[in-house]
């Protein structure tokens, strides 16, 4: 996109281009040619390497003076002589490697631009005298330390409920705009309820609040909603967008992306938000719970953030997604732009990209056994661990993974511009239960209990249908239980010997362990023999039932089975100490080497590199200029409908600076350390920031522009927040709200996701729906449900497919009938006027106006003219249709 140019410069450039085409000599060029035309071209094509960010060859082209000064090799232009000097020569060079900008770094200048440049050189390189060079990228606002700004004093203190309003009012004072009045209590209740718990207020809830005469009614409601467990579900879904939640998917049953049971990470997010775990702690645990809280399964769930990026076939996409979204999500940096070359706008070198990757290079994923469930296909905690600590990270030349620069491994680190603190990587010694997860006290118990349940089931089967086969089934299950018990005992024995090795008693313990191991081997072989016996019994049964022509084959099968049984029985007594250990965790096999077979297993190491906990400490250090600003911006955007920094994942120089930098810094400071009295005092409390934002006067304003001509005229884009931004509800809030009003919403929190096939009939909240690239719910997707690959902000499109979905989806019709029955129970009949009033209050959270009532009455009679009233006392169709219409009302999907 070409930047706008002053009209005269544009005309001049056009004239020059025409002249160039017509072959006439070009002469008219002046200072405006440089500042109005050429400088813009150079900014696009040259500044990244020859400007404030980098000065390759010692050359800067961001001022005419710099251009004239030349580079290390001397001057690049000769004023007055476009044929001399290297600048033009390099720009027009035929060899793409010699040409400037070089191939892959930028598009060549057009012939018209080159002619303009020549004309300008011919004219003697005229330029304005007061040119200032491009600003130092290190001085960019978001890279500078965050300092808590003083709260401004304003002329209208009655417009200020808390410091947020002081910052905004100070901005409004400069324009003279007065803010809109406060919204009605009905609107505020619906606003707060949907914003804080993602559901509309129930009619009786709304009525109670409207009747609350206390001065503190608003704060009381805010605190109740923040303490509601549904708050974690609502805001959990917001953070799942930013942190890129995705259930596992692959080809059929083959896991290719994310991890099985990754929903434990979702539940951790919901629980952590409800517990108001600090944002810093959440970030630390997501990046490095296995180093910070090893062996703590509830906290290990957090590393789903990293396990989510797992990809079966290739480490590089896994690493690329991790680097890109750690940088975008936590730091607001487009570090991904530095994968192939140095960043064109921010002081991030290509090496910095790979230094970030190096933090994650050792990663592998695994499933850990949960109490009570030893079958990892059924459940388990997906998590990461440093599986390959010594694998070096190499810079990929031009970003191509086939071209690693193996001459120099890249160590973990951060860009030099962030010098507030260094990254201190120290290896972390892990508890033994990390490398030997079966040591966790519940693991052997879980295996034993499961074997016990199998035995009970076998006995029940035998009792239900006694036979030699079912009797043998009991024998197998009993041998299985014995084997599990012996294996558990042998493992405990081995650990005792290992733990006390060197304490003097090792001989006895080793001998005991060896004996236990022999017992375990014997028990396992007994189980094999029991199974072999079962095979014999089956073969004999088949033989007995076989037709004459099948007899020989059946006889052979019996003979073979008997031989196998004999071998199995003999082997029971043979020596051996190598038994099958009970599984405490399972590595998720990768296929990085060859896609047709799993890679060799990765053992669970006894130390972790400490890289990720060091990175986490650096990201969450109070001195990090970006982290708190990025988080506060996300929180603000979701409450207020528009972010302070519009480019929520890019706080760099290519991003858009905040309209209210002091407000952003104040909010960020308040997130890290609260200064305003109130609840939620701990560092990085998100509930503190929620409470601050929703109790501000700015949050409570009307969203209409009506009656504020000054605001519309002077600030039509509402940059000074003189009114509230209306918000199109997220897809989840639309669906959940309908079910909640129908009274059918399932209140259960957490658990395995609802598969696609069960979703149409499901009444669970939408965040529990399976969410993968191939499987996304059609209704949610239509309303701009979260993208699986990236979703820093929800889209808010308005397309006819949404109207079709809301008008036609079966669950909307079902809900309409239930809502109609709820607001006008058959036991207490109401007239149309009362029904309409109740329907408006229930669905839109406000009473109907006279005109609206009139329209509804007319529609009711139209419906009645074509549809008969049911005789059985059920709600009549006309009223159900009316509810349907209000569910399709623009205000139902809008947070006014």
């Amino acid at each position, binding site marked *: 996109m070409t930047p706008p140019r002053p009209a005269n410069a544009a005309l001049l450039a056009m004239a020059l281009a025409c002249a160039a085409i017509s072959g006439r000599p070009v002469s008219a060029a002046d200072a405006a040619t440089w500042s109005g035309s050429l400088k813009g071209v150079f900014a696009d094509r040259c500044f990244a390497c020859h400007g404030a960010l980098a000065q390759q060859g010692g050359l800067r082209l961001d001022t005419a003076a710099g251009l004239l000064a030349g580079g290390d090799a001397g001057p690049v232009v000769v004023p007055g002589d476009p044929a001399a000097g290297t600048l033009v020569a390099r720009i027009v060079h035929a060899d793409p490697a010699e040409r400037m900008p070089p191939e892959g770094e930028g598009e060549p200048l057009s012939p018209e631009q080159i002619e303009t440049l020549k004309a300008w050189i011919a004219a003697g390189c005229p330029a304005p005298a007061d040119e200032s060079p491009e600003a130092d990228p290190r001085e960019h606002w978001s890279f500078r330390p965050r300092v808590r700004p003083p709260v401004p004093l304003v002329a209208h203190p009655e417009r200020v409920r808390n410091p947020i309003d002081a910052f905004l009012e100070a901005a409004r004072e400069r324009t003279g705009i007065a803010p809109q009045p406060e919204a009605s209590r009905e609107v505020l209740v619906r606003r707060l309820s949907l914003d804080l718990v993602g559901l509309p207020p129930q009619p009786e809830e709304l009525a109670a609040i409207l009747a609350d005469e206390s001065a503190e009614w608003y704060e009381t409601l805010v605190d109740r909603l923040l303490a509601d467990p549904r708050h974690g579900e609502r805001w959990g879904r917001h953070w799942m967008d930013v942190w890129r939640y995705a259930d596992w998917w692959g080809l059929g049953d083959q896991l290719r992306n994310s991890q099985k049971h990754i929903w434990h990470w979702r539940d951790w997010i919901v629980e952590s938000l409800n517990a108001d775990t600090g944002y810093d702690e959440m970030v630390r645990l997501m990046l490095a719970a296995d180093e910070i809280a090893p062996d703590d399964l509830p906290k290990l769930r957090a590393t789903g953030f990293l396990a989510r990026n797992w990809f079966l076939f290739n480490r590089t996409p896994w690493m690329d997604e991790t680097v890109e979204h750690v940088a975008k999500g936590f730091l607001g940096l487009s570090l991904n732009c530095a994968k192939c070359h140095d960043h064109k706008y921010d002081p991030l070198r290509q090496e910095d990209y790979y230094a970030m990757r190096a933090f994650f290079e050792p990663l592998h994923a695994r499933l850990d056994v949960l109490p009570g469930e030893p079958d990892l296909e059924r459940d388990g905690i997906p998590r990461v661990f440093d599986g390959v600590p010594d694998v070096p990270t190499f810079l990929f030349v031009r970003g191509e993974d086939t071209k690693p620069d193996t001459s120099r491994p890249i160590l973990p680190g951060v860009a030099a511009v962030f010098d507030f603190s260094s990254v201190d990587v120290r290896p972390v010694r892990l508890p033994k239960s990390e490398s030997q997860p079966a040591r966790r006290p519940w693991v052997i118990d879980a295996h034993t209990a499961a074997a016990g349940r199998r035995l009970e089931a076998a006995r029940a089967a035998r009792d239900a249908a006694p036979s030699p086969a079912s009797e043998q089934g009991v024998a197998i299950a009993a041998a299985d239980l014995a084997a599990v018990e012996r294996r558990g005992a042998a493992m405990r024995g081995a650990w005792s010997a290992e733990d006390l090795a060197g304490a003097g008693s090792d001989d006895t313990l080793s001998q005991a362990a060896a004996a236990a191991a022999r017992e375990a081997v014997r028990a396992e072989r007994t189980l094999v023999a029991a199974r072999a016996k079962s095979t014999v019994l089956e073969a004999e049964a088949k033989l007995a039932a076989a037709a004459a022509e099948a007899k020989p084959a059946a006889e052979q099968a019996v003979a073979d089975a008997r031989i196998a049984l004999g071998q199995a029985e003999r082997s029971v007594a043979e020596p051996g100490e190598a038994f099958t250990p009970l599984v405490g965790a399972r590595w998720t096999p990768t296929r990085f080497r060859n896609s047709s077979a799993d890679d060799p297993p990765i053992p669970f190491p006894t130390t972790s590199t400490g890289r990720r906990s060091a990175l986490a400490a650096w990201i969450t250090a109070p001195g990090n200029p970006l982290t708190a600003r990025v988080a506060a911006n996300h929180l603000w955007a979701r409450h207020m409908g528009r972010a302070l920094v519009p480019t929520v994942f890019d706080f760099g120089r290519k991003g*858009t600076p905040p309209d209210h930098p002091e407000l952003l810094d104040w909010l960020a400071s308040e997130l890290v350390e609260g200064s305003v009295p109130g609840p939620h005092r701990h560092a990085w409390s998100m509930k503190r920031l929620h409470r601050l934002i929703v109790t501000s006067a700015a949050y409570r304003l009307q969203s209409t522009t009506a009656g504020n001509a000054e605001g519309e005229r002077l600030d039509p884009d509402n940059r000074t927040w003189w009114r509230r931004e209306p918000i199109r509800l997220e897809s989840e809030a639309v669906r959940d709200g309908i079910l909640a009003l129908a009274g059918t919403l399932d209140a259960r929190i957490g658990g395995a996701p609802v598969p696609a096939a069960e979703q149409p009939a499901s009444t669970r909240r939408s965040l529990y729906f399976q969410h993968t690239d191939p499987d996304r719910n*059609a209704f949610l997707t239509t309303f701009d449900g979260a993208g699986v690959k990236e979703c820093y902000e929800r889209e808010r499109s308005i397309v006819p497919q*949404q109207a079709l979905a809301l008008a036609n989806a079966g669950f909307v019709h079902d809900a309409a009938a239930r809502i109609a029955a709820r607001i006008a129970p058959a036991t207490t009949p109401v007239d149309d006027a009362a029904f309409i009033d109740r329907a408006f209050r229930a669905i839109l959270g406000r009473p109907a106006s006279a005109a609206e009532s009139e329209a509804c009455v007319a529609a009711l009679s139209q419906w009645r003219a074509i549809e008969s009233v049911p005789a059985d006392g059920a709600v009549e169709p006309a009223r159900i249709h009316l509810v349907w219409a209000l569910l399709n009302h623009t205000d139902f999907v809008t947070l006014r």
Partner: protein
Amino acid sequence: MRPSNTVVIPPRRAFLADLGLGFTGLALGAMLARDGVGSPAAWTPPDGRPHFAPKAKSVIWLFMNGGVSHLESFDFKPEITKHAGKTIAETPYADVQNPAKLALERAPVPDANGLQRNTLFPLQTGFRRHGQSGLEISDLFPHTARNADRIAVVRSMWTTDSNHGAQTQFHTGRHMLDPAQPTLGGWVHYGLGSINDELPQFISIGFREYWNRKDGLYLGPAHDAVPLRIDPANPLDFGRPERPFSPEAQSIGFDLVGQLDRATAVEYPDDPATAARIASYELAHSMQQSVPRVVDFADESEETKRLYGLDLPHCRDFGMQLLAARRFVERGVRFIQIQHGGGGAGAWDAHGGLKANHSNLALAVDQPIGGLLEDLARRGLLDETIVLFATEFGRTPGTQGSDGRDHHPFAFSVWMAGGGIKGGTVHGATDELGFHAVEDRHYVTDIHATILKQLGLDSRKLEIPGRKRLAIDHGTPIDAILG
């Protein structure tokens, strides 16, 4: 049908400018206003007008999933048959396997696909010259061949993904390991918006399971294709009430919603979302009727139905899709994307049994395609409609197993017709074995650039601040095939 630019509302602010797109771009406008780099005045979203005079209005994009063998379709290489059974190294053309020439390949997943196949496998079908142009087309495509003078074959296509990520790559221009990009249909929808307010303007028919089904990506979901089934009873998701609700009762309901929403619009006078929602409900109401009507062929003559092969079981399904495509084009729909050959790896993926595979699949698509070209031509629609026949990559000259060909990213053929494309043209060439594109080589985005040029769009002018595209994303129009 209204021309595209009659509903443009002067942009009081960037937000409102979206209404000019028939409100489909609302999310985008909001996003862009937020993304805007520098002053918002420096950039405005497209207004739905082409950047220069267009030669074509609509695109019918026919994509064969799995990889059609160029050697059995549009690129006749008798030397393969001549040297059949020899290894490539034993022929005079051993240099095609020079590693430097093979370096463009990028395998996202190293597996047993896309490998070098060394022993030459003879051509599995004959070729003949057709039309006045004498275009060589294989005997598997007689109906396409009848239209030889209408099509321009590009024999020098190349891509870089040797696996089925090439499906994505053909549509977006990027390898699967690169960041995801919008598809061409998404760009066209974004750039040109609506020419018929009663139908979706970007329609997707058939399976497209291999890649993310999102087209718009950072352009916004409003620019995703609307998936459509050729079933008058149920063509669209949520296309009709899922519970009993008579059309009369529903109409009363839609009227009431409109009245109530307009009352809200008075209370919130400058809320573009309310205005857009009112319009979207009106459109949705009419789409419920208009879309099924387009996929209902009751008013088509028997002769026309036969032309598309609707009377033949083997090509009925694809014929119905193409007949629907023509009916959508007639009604001004911009972009109809049709995938043939199932999901996953795709039906054309003839690792074994290539002869039977390609014969059967060609039988399924060829007559409908021939019929489509002739039907468009006789209705005067071909001049303003681009038809593209494309696939993900070619297939190896060497044999895989005993009778198959493997994936081959180094050369493949596509063709285009209509919309200002010069018929009877062959452009570009492969070497004697059909191994590498050697003359006038074209990466997949050159096809994008050619289509955009005919539609009057400059992809660089569509670029969005903060979303820098590379030269390879833009491609270069293939002027040699333009009339």
